[in-house]
């Protein structure tokens, strides 16, 4: 166990911080130690279930019901012991001296209270200020974070803003009190890449201006290393490695950390890409997809154009990545190819035959040769089917296969996707996220399709699991030669699997080319912005990130 030598300059220090389920239950955080100096930054990094979020919440005594800190835990803030502090004394520290920013901007601002009221609340409570002063301060802060029309913003409700804007507003409302410490719990995980970068930069700027220390909680070692020098890696409640981010990233000591670093996107991971020059498999020409607007009293609201005149060819055996922010139309296009969404105009053809629209038997037969893997393995498997039923279901459409041969095929596929046969009788909720996604992949490839759409197949998974799934997709593709449309917002994942990359913005493809061309020599400004925001680790670490960190420290 690493015990940092706390010097006199520490502001926050935790010793033996342990959290258990009830006074005598299982420990979800186990003897955690860390120190943070005034104005400094510290990151807790770990995957889901590592206990990082609860460790952060325990500082302000915000653990949910059955969780408690153990009696020998100690959290000292500015010389004051926080564990066991009376609720009233604790409330004077919350918000005023230690602020907290949460992960989901959609649910962490109260939908029923105006922005102005939510900003004013903290000031009114902790600072003796007049109503007018509070308003002036709030307006100045909103201007500082570049919100258009700040006075209108004060009277608005959270639902009127996008996720990124809400996160900026939450950050502003917390920093308004100039706390000594900011705890940021996965502040950008729910946001698009470009927005993520903006919000993080803003956070660094605001805390620098006020001399506020930051404790950043994240699952993303790559992102953390861009901003923070001091990293603690957590696994199953324990701090398994502590040190500077450079050291953790380049010379990880612990096996788990090594796994985590390996999971960071690297171009070499997927193997060197050969140029794929197979014949065209899927041809998309001038496809437009509109979503009808909501019906209103006398008319319909204006239709929303999701895909706006796209031409695209996917060749046999290749992986084409479709990259873009949420709302760019990439998912809609992927779903249109497999026939889940009907294009408003344009044609999609598969093996030279136009995709028959509608639900005819012909269309269904054609679709069997293409499959889809969805983003969320929790909702893409029928909760009432066993794994065996899920995997064999597609085979039932094949009348030539009898039960025996179906079972044989199932066993084969289950092994190929790296699952064991003892899972076959289980139900989806008894499996982990990674296992479920393997089941979804097994279902997709069991009939040996020529083409698979993978719609954000890894973005709901932990980093290390993501890596495994990406490698699995590649190896299966190598073996069976199916083509893949890999829809993703995550350039890191794309870099590892794609042969070619198409970048989509506002329903249009703005750039398409071989992977190395797009990543190394981006032509379109939007592609450059995306790449810059993605904070890809292995190339940029030395130059860009170093500079950014220097600013942050």
């Amino acid at each position, binding site marked *: 166990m690493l015990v940092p030598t706390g010097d006199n300059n520490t502001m926050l220090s935790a010793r033996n911080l342990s959290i258990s389920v009830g006074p005598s239950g299982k420990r979800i955080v186990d003897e955690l130690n860390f120190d943070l100096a005034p104005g400094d930054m510290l990151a807790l990094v770990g995957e889901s279930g590592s206990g990082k979020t609860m460790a952060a*919440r325990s500082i*302000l005594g915000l653990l949910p019901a059955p969780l408690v800190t153990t009696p020998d835990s100690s959290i000292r803030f500015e010389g004051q012991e926080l564990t066991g502090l009376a609720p009233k004394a604790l409330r004077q520290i919350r918000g005023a001296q230690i602020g907290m920013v949460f*992960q989901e901007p959609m649910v962490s601002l109260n939908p029923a209270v105006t922005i102005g009221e939510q900003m004013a609340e903290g000031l009114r409570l902790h600072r003796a200020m007049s109503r007018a002063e509070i308003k002036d301060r709030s307006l100045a802060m909103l201007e500082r974070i570049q919100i258009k029309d700040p006075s209108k913003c004060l009277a608005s409700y959270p*639902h009127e803003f996008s996720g990124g804007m809400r996160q900026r507003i939450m950050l502003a409302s917390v920093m308004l009190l100039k706390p000594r410490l900011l705890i940021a719990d996965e502040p950008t995980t729910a946001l698009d890449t470009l927005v993520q970068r903006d919000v993080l930069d803003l956070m660094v700027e605001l805390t620098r201006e006020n001399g506020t220390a930051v404790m950043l909680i994240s699952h993303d070692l790559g992102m953390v290393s861009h901003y923070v020098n001091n990293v603690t890696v957590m696994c199953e409640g324990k701090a398994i490695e502590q040190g500077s981010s450079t050291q953790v990233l380049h010379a990880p000591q612990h096996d788990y950390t090594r796994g985590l670093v390996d999971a960071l996107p690297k171009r070499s991971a997927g193997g060197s890409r050969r140029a794929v020059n197979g014949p065209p498999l899927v041809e998309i020409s001038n496809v437009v997809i509109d979503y009808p607007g909501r019906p209103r009293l006398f008319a319909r609201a204006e239709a929303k154009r999701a895909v706006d005149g796209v031409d695209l060819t996917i060749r046999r055996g290749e992986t084409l990545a479709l990259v873009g922010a949420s709302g760019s139309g990439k998912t809609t296009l992927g779903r249109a190819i497999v026939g889940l969404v009907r294009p408003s105009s344009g044609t999609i053809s598969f093996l030279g035959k136009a995709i028959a629209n509608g639900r005819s038997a012909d269309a269904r037969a054609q679709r069997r040769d293409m499959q889809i893997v969805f983003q969320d393995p929790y909702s893409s498997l029928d909760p009432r089917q066993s794994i065996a039923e899920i995997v064999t279901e597609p085979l039932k459409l094949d009348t030539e296969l009898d039960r025996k041969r179906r079972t044989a095929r199932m066993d084969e596929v289950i092994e190929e996707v790296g699952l064991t046969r003892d899972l076959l009788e289980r139900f989806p909720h008894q499996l982990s996220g990674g296992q479920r996604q393997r089941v979804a992949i097994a279902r997709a490839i069991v009939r040996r399709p020529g083409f698979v759409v993978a719609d954000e197949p890894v973005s709901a998974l932990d980093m290390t699991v993501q890596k495994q799934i990406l490698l699995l997709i590649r190896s299966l593709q190598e073996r069976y030669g199916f083509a893949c449309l890999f829809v993703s917002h995550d350039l890191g994942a794309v870099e590892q699997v794609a042969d070619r990359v198409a970048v989509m913005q506002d329903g249009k493809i703005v750039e398409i080319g071989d992977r190395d061309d797009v990543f190394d020599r981006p032509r379109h400004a939007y592609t450059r912005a995306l790449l810059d925001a993605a904070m890809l680790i292995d190339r940029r670490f030395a130059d860009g990130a170093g500079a950014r960190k220097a600013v942050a420290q």
Partner: protein
Amino acid sequence: MVRFVLTRIASAIPTLILVSVAVFVMMRFVPGDPATLMLGDLAQPGQVDAMRHQMGLDQPVVVQYLIWAGNVLSGDFGRSIGSGQEVLPLILDRFAVSSTIVFVAVLVASAIAVPAGMLAAWKQDSLRDIAVVATSTILLSIPSFWLGLMLMLIFGLYLGWLPVVGYVPFSRDFAQAALYVILPVVTLVLVESGPIARMARASTIEVARLEYITHARAKGLSESAVMWRHAFKNAFAPTLTLIGYVLGSLLSSIVVIETVFTIPGLGRLLVDAIYARDYPVIQGSMLFIAFIYVVVNLLVDLVYPLLDPRVAA
């Protein structure tokens, strides 16, 4: 916002039209010929035919509906077969009685049950919570007419504190009137507190685990400020819908209470009309009660955005 209000009001119109059609169709199936009922058993066949003509019963069904709907819109609900009185004034008279009792009862029930449910939810699984859940589940299970009879037995007959049956209009003698409605109101308060408390509790539990509640705590707000300033509005919104539903549906289900305490209310009017096959009264009061129900729900929908601004977006 203006669009939301107009859309919502406009959407109630087809519902009301359908309701009137449903009532009209239902009345066509009431056994017995209205003209014969109107004239009594001793009427001559010729008289019946004349009556049918006078009542428009020889017209096509659609025409009959349109005539009736037109009359209703101009406030003419027809005349009672039994007493010959005009139906609408009769209904309004009885409505005043029923609505006073229902309104007071629902108001009191909400004032007790909503805070009880919220406080229970705030400390889930505590003794307080278990007590509230147990009480509300028991109240939910007691039929109102039996509870009324039991209260009558205890406070009226056994203790002799309150009058047992009857009704005095508030306009005649306020104190006396109040004395007579205590038992019916208390009965309804008890019975309706059950579902309201359960709903308030369930929606508060739902809200209490959301991130903005933790966020409010992280700002340093006290527990009561977190609860009333941040949880209340969000948790009360679905409860308000239930309260509106209770308010609207009590206007008909109060009939059992009116029967227990012999109160001349709207429900009693309807049931007596059903016994007497007084179809203009049945038709009129069904339409009226359904109309009030639709309007109450409409009002709730219009108030809803004040609690949850997202719905008006």
